[in-house]
């Protein structure tokens, strides 16, 4: 069978698995909702302050939620030997890894896209910034999955890789966080955000091309 069939078989398999492990998949989404809703309680009912913090709060929570879900990207495949079988496949591992990353985004990034605007309204984010918030999420949550895949494929062989994973991945998330939350904030002030959006598009395209390669190599190392 051809490479494209293999690619879609991987995406399809991971989506079926996600559906059968619904509880596990719901975790990051609940985490996201919880963190965002706790902020008003901690900060107090200061509307202006919340409104000013909203872009940052939403983006930091989204970033942490995605990080929480990263470990499941390769963990079960590593534990049950499916990863070995993928390595032995005659298809390039990079493409199969890209399939897994896309499935990961569909089950973690996409729900955030749906919930984030609701939470933004809840925090009092100005209406004119909602569109920009959605655009930044569409562009940047795939980046989180892509960059995360490198970190998680490096640490999947370690028994307690959680701490190292965050140390590896968080610094790489920082540019995304800066440009995305800044874009939302400026859109709230009614300014143009073309520059930030363009940079996010560039980051997305670069990570689609560049992230699966080191992730695949790191997986080969982790299996040995």
């Amino acid at each position: 069978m051809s490479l494209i069939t293999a690619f879609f078989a991987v995406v399809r398999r991971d989506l079926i698995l996600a559906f059968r492990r619904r509880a596990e998949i719901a975790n990051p989404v609940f985490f996201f909702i919880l963190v965002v809703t706790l902020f008003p309680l901690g900060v107090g009912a200061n509307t202006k302050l919340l409104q000013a913090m909203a872009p940052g709060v939403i983006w930091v929570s989204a970033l942490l939620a995605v990080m929480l879900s990263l470990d499941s990207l390769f963990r079960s495949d590593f534990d049950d030997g499916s990863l070995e079988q993928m390595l032995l496949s005659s298809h390039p591992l990079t493409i199969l890894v890209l399939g897994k990353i896309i499935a990961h985004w569909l089950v973690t990034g996409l729900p955030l896209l749906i919930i984030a605007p609701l939470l933004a309204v809840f925090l009092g984010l100005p209406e004119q910034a909602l569109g920009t918030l959605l655009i930044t999420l569409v562009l940047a949550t795939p980046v989180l999955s892509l960059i995360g895949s490198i970190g998680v494929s490096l640490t999947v062989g370690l028994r307690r890789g959680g701490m190292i994973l965050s140390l590896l991945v968080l610094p790489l998330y920082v540019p995304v966080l800066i440009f995305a939350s800044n874009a939302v904030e400026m859109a709230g002030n009614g300014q143009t955000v073309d520059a930030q959006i363009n940079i996010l598009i560039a980051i997305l395209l670069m990570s689609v091309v560049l992230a699966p390669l080191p992730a695949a190599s790191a997986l080969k190392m982790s299996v040995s």
Partner: protein
Amino acid sequence: MDSLTLENRSFEVRNLSCIRDDRILFEGLDFTLNNNQVLLLEGKNGSGKTSLLRIICGFREQDAGDIIWCNTPIKDSDFFAEMAYVGHLDGVKKELTVVENLKMSLALSVAGNYSIEQALDKVHLAGYDDSIVQSLSAGQKRRLSLARLLITRNSLWVLDEPFTSIDKEGIKLIESLMHEHICAGGMIILTSHHDLYLHETEVQKINLSLCH
């Protein structure tokens, strides 16, 4: 039935060494495997049987020596398209059904001589098509991972302890599948603590405990 011709394949290991934590597991290992041949790796626990198989699969780097497939080093040849591996881990997803698992294996590889239905029949898992793998017993999971060997196109089977958690009748069944594969021109490398009874087939044996 046999649409694939497996002639003129050769698998060769030259002067292979494996060192782990300053311990030499084996060194200077040489063997050649041609069509219709079986190699049984023996040795004590920790003598490097699994390490050797993992080196052959490309999961580990050898510390010295070459592995050659049809006169080309395996990294430059189509070796990985022609081999199939069943290791300690079954490589099946427990949340998926039997058929979903096999379809995935098929998508990662090239279709072989048997259809999924026929292969399940062969390993006595017929009727379990839509069962979730989690509900199968350990032996049945093992048979499922062996069914993968039948549905994909391959000439070399690399099997790490294929008889683990399989009952007596299952062992006979797997031996007959191996025999069929060998008669069709295939090759097998396996580790096992069981004695292997293959009808009219010569089994090469290498004891890794002695390869120092």
